[in-house]
């Protein structure tokens, strides 16, 4: 039996309407899928018609994306061309027309490839009345909506051409679920001034590779320069075993794909 959909004008109204069992409806690729699969924990949907949730604004080198911005919107935005590969890595064309930034932030591993990019970009997560850094958000995300309301958007410094690197490894070509994904923002020419590295499917949610970030800083992107970062890239990871790949396999191939991404 279908579950009732409640439509609200603003994110704050949504937050008030979200009670026990009510799920926020963004693009539907997570919550409608869950109910189709028989998730009886969801007893109804709530959505917002606030148009600002669908807008992309880029000003003074900083981008602000509404939580309902889709992967397709990002992939075709000229101002976000640098990060388009991460948006294009999500699903096929129909999924990209529906999957949203907000949903990606809350997707369970191995989904959420765009959120991996947001980790590397050190994005800020916005709520109606507060904001927090993405690391903090990911740690606290399980109870975050009850605490702060729905995510209204994300913002980040748009990387310059060549600063952003992204790799998604999947068994099905051209599109499949992630064995793992890696995003990196490398600043500096010759010597690495700073590195932001996000990993997907290497834990129950996207995570930062802090040890590898530290190892890259001050080195160069040569075989020798990245050796220490390659050695420690798996530090802190706890990948799952699922139908796509075993935990062991993910841990074994992560350094290989990270090395290729850094040298590529």
């Amino acid at each position: 039996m279908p579950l009732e959909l409640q439509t609200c004008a603003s994110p704050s109204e949504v937050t008030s309407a979200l009670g026990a069992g009510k799920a926020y409806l963004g693009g539907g690729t997570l919550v409608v899928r869950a109910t189709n699969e028989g998730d009886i924990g969801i007893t109804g949907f709530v959505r917002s018609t606030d148009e600002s949730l669908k807008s992309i604004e880029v000003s003074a080198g900083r981008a602000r994306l509404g939580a309902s911005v889709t992967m397709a919107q990002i992939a075709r935005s000229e101002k976000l061309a640098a990060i388009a590969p991460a948006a294009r890595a999500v699903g096929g064309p129909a999924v990209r027309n529906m999957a949203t930034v907000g949903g990606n932030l809350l997707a369970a591993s191995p989904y959420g490839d765009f959120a991996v990019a947001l980790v590397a970009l050190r994005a800020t997560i916005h709520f109606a009345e507060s904001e927090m850094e993405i690391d903090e958000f990911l740690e606290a995300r399980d109870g975050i909506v009850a605490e702060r309301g729905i995510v209204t958007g994300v913002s980040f410094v748009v990387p310059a051409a060549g600063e952003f690197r992204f790799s998604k490894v999947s068994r099905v070509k051209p599109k499949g679920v992630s064995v793992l994904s890696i995003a990196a923002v490398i600043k500096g020419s010759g010597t690495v001034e700073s590195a932001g590295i996000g990993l997907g499917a290497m834990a129950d949610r996207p995570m930062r590779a802090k040890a590898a970030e530290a190892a890259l800083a001050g080195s160069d992107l040569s075989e020798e320069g990245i050796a220490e970062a390659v050695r420690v890239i798996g530090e802190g990871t706890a990948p799952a075993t699922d139908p796509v790949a075993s935990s062991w396999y993910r841990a074994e191939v992560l350094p290989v794909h990270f090395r290729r991404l850094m040298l590529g």
Partner: protein
Amino acid sequence: MARVPVQFTLNGQERAEFIESGATLLSVLRDRMGDTSPKGGCHQGTCGACSVIVDGELRLSCLTLAETCEGASIQTAAGLADGSELHPIQKAIVEGFATQCGFCAPGMVMAIKVLLDEKPAPSREDVIEAISGNVCRCTGYEPIIQAVLTASRSNSQQAV
């Protein structure tokens, strides 16, 4: 459960129904409006058999709630043919033996239509990307890819 009104254009015709709140577009199209061309395959957004075009964008009708399509223009495979005259994409698929059991075909055709509407002369890579969300367990995809390239050549010849 209270019923809610929903109104949209389906293959060029104004349609209005009272539906159960939260019903998927797939169930409304098939069970309330009698358009059985979108297929319910996985109901998870994985197979693409339910693909329809909503306001020019390819969408998965199994994951789209019908109420969110209020006022939209929806196209399904059932609206492609002009009477007994098949759409060029359908014709290329039939003539290229690019369908076997036929279950994926209505969704596949809509994914191809979006591609050719945006890019009338796509490359092979464009075609592979465009149908990457549509699963076919019969053909091995190659006949479908060839059919799309044939349909696009036919388009360009007609344009000349």
